[in-house]
């Protein structure tokens, strides 16, 4: 690196002055460039491979009747309905609690002594393993109702969605300028009116995006459902009975020797992956546009 300082022969000194960097430093730069770009390329391979293989293996089986038949008739209608039911229950439970906690953090939190504590707990809640959430929901609901059920599954997913909704709501509300709150207060609005008519309304698109992201994440969760909602091959008998869902369908049937069921696994993967990626891409694009403004 400092070889040019030690060189005594004028000719080589001249050579080195013309080349911007000594060989070793130049080599190091090229080597590290190559490593970094190669690693980045490697990082993309799994994603591309997953997309390609799922589509290639699943598309041939994609038929309309699959959406209306239950698993015993080689469809995934009951799993789609089950996922929709469980996620709806989860959203009904987590959205109000999450939005109000987000309001607490963004609107009350600036002066409230407990705000940092609440934010800290929410962050910790984000990292709780999903299987632990499943065990929690099992203990608190399945043991009480003595039934694996959509409600228990919904409760588990609500616990997973809650911190996501809290944090995205807080971020969304913080983007609303303080001037708008002051303007509302100056016109005689109280805190309830200011929060709901002005702040939440302005932040509504961003909050919706956060909720959609949470729903997308929850629809792909398998582990908590395996110990709470379980699975059923046929249409579910009600909210308090075992309910099928797309992720659990894939997990339960991926080793099934029956080729028709095996095809079902790949085809339902297209539906699940398509759903989850579509929501993620759309909501991320929307939030990114907002940030640029």
């Amino acid at each position: 690196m400092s070889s040019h300082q030690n060189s005594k022969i004028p000719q080589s000194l001249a050579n080195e002055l013309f080349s911007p960097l000594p060989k070793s430093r130049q080599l190091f730069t090229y080597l590290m460039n190559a490593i970094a770009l190669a690693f980045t390329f490697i990082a993309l391979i799994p994603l591309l491979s997953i997309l390609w293989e799922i589509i290639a293996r699943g598309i041939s089986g994609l038929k309309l009747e699959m959406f209306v038949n239950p698993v015993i008739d080689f469809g995934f209608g009951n799993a789609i309905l089950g996922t929709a039911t469980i996620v709806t229950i989860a959203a009904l439970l987590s959205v109000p609690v999450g939005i109000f906690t987000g309001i607490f953090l963004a609107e009350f939190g600036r002066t409230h002594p407990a705000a940092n504590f609440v934010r800290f707990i929410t962050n910790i809640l984000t990292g709780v393993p999903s299987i632990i959430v499943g065990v929690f929901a099992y203990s608190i609901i399945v043991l009480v109702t003595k039934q694996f059920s959509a409600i228990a599954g919904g409760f588990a997913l609500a616990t997973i969605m809650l911190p996501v909704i809290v944090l995205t709501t807080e971020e969304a509300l913080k983007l609303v300028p303080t001037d708008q709150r002051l303007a509302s207060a100056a016109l005689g609005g109280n805190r309830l009116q200011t929060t709901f008519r002005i702040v939440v309304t302005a932040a509504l698109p961003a909050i919706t995006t956060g909720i959609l992201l949470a729903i997308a994440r929850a629809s792909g969760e398998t582990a908590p459902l395996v110990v709470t909602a379980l699975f059923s091959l046929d249409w579910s008998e009600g909210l308090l009975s075992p309910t099928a869902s797309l992720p659990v369908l894939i997990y339960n049937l991926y080793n099934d020797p029956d080729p028709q069921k095996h095809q079902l696994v790949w085809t339902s993967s297209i539906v699940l992956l398509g759903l989850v990626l579509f929501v993620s891409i759309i909501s991320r694009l929307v939030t990114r546009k907002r940030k640029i403004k």
Partner: protein
Amino acid sequence: MKNSANSPYNNSLPLNDKNIELIAKDGIKGWFDQGFTWLVYTFTAMTVAMLFVMSWIIFKEARPAIAKFGIEFLWGKDWDVGNEVFGALPYIYGTLVSSAIAILFAFPVGLAVALVTSENFLPVSIQTTLAFVVQLIAAIPSVIIGLWGIFIFIPALEPLQKWIAKYFSWIPIFNTTDPFGTNMLTAGIILAIMILPTIAAISRDVLLAIPKELRSASMALGSTRWETIFRVLLPAGFSGIVSAAMLALGRALGETMAVTMVIGNSAQISASLLDPAYTIPSVIANEFAEAERGLHIGALTYLGLVLFGVTLFVNFGAVVLVEWVGKKNR
């Protein structure tokens, strides 16, 4: 700032974001505000209570097993459901080793992605697209990654693993005759793929937050780009990058479905990474729904409690580090 909470009409305070209180004090509006405030407090308390109730419930359900096995559960090696003998060591070992392998693979790759997408290697539009695409990996459901792992990744990797086992079996970590694709190494790599976006995204944010002046100063002193990265940027962002790795570790420890599908689910402790293993989340997912109430459920929940404790500790550390970095940068 604290003053203003008590006396919103104090005009001597400068009006800034921190000290406005828009609350109505009396009249019917005051009642509405009181009710609204309490509603917000109630829901917030529910969010906070969630974590504590969860800890308590998990602890309560694990109590039969804690009473029976005590702390020895942690280094018991046998797991015999029929005779009600339960020991956690093979699962703890599998969880820790698979996560360690995951970090080992994901850290350099994640950091490389963070560097490529934050420094000026590529045009900005390509940078943001790359960062966005890598982020999409995080959105793929775990069970689909597991499906890909078992039907596409394992067949692709198996010849390589067989070759390694044939010629390098004198190294203890490869000492397996004729390895089958489902093993600790495969699970570690699958986990690495899943935690990569976490490391890449957080490290990228950390690197982007480092002031431009530091880069310029280093370059002005004659450093090349990589000398700047190694001597200025990485040390400046060190704590942030470490916390990114810790958050990713927390994810890896708790990851269930993909690991269950590719790790082979065999409760043994083997030095060889080409042998099947088992993890805490996997055994819970496999046995919990069919377990008898009593000692079996208790033992599984006890395992859950151990995992809960470890991930809480790791996440706690990461969150504290992130907040500390945030304060330092402000």
